[in-house]
């Protein structure tokens, strides 16, 4: 009789432990999701800032001080033209290949990587020849993000 009771009590404790383990598991998943959400909100704001910064510059090195009406007059290579710091950048494609790290108090480093390339205006597909549209892609990485976030923006001349 005492043996049966002991088995019943042990069975109850095991079931209860299983419930607690499941609850802890759900709590951790929920906490991770919450952190991911927070990281997404912050990463989006930080990424959007770079896009804003880039699109405030001239469309192309050749349009900084001149007017261009033929695509042939646009730059073939998309990179910074002897500008060292982003404060010196004067056109959108100077940001191509730029890497920057924004450090914030709660979630640490947000690593940003920018890619700029010509796109076909109607299909938005990558174009290897110059066009009057450039696409800015910003990839953002952070330890709390499950995958990198990619923000895109197309600027046209």
């Amino acid at each position: 009789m005492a043996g049966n009771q002991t088995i019943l009590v042990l069975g109850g404790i095991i079931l209860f432990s299983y419930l607690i383990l499941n609850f802890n598991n759900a709590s951790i998943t929920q906490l991770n999701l919450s952190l991911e959400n927070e990281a997404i909100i912050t990463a989006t704001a930080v990424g959007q800032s770079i896009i804003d910064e880039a699109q405030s510059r001239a469309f192309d090195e050749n349009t900084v001080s001149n007017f261009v009406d033929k695509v042939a007059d646009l730059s073939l290579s998309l990179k910074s033209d002897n500008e060292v710091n982003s404060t010196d950048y004067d056109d959108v494609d100077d940001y191509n290949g730029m890497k920057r790290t924004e450090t914030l108090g709660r979630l640490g480093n947000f690593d940003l990587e920018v890619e700029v390339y010509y796109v076909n205006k109607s299909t938005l597909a990558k174009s290897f020849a110059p066009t009057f549209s450039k696409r800015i892609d910003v990839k953002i990485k952070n330890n709390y993000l499950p995958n990198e976030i990619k923000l895109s923006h197309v600027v046209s001349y």
Partner: protein
Amino acid sequence: MAYLIDVLGSVIVSSFVILMLVGFNVQMSTFSYDMFSSTLTQGNAVVTGQILEYDLYKIGYRASGQKISFADSTKIIYSTDLENNGSLDSVCYYIGTIENLSNTSNPIDRPLYRSQNGQSPIQIAAVSRLEHTTYFTYLDSAGVKIPSPNTVDLRKKIRTIKVGMRLQAAEAVEGIYQGVDWERTIRPKNLMN
């Protein structure tokens, strides 16, 4: 004797089970409140971000004279035609004092106020300062910080406004205030020239 041992044993086991149940309930309610607080703060951060972006992008729209009439690390006053109706509006964003939010248990949160055309200010959010920056930072066309744009000429140089703040929960959960860091660089089109 055996009967007494049985009773004592069952009392001890049931006490443990009750303790586990109480602990479980406490943990569950703490966790629920933590999640609620976290979700609320994140929602506030998103909405505050949207309000600030919507307003600050419009700085100087249809304003011919001074577009920004006051700018420091905790306050900005600017002119814009907010409703696109031909009449200029004056919009002010400023950070209140810790005492303005003394009804919350958070010791460092301050209100972010918005006021339009001199009307009573409306609290947008409860914020605190990020460690590495001020609430409002002003940059010129080269992206160089203008430390204190306290003259008309210095304010005319402003091209970019960097807003940085930590939105925090009013109440702590186990000593921790849930929060979201929000930092955004805004380049209003009407400050470009």
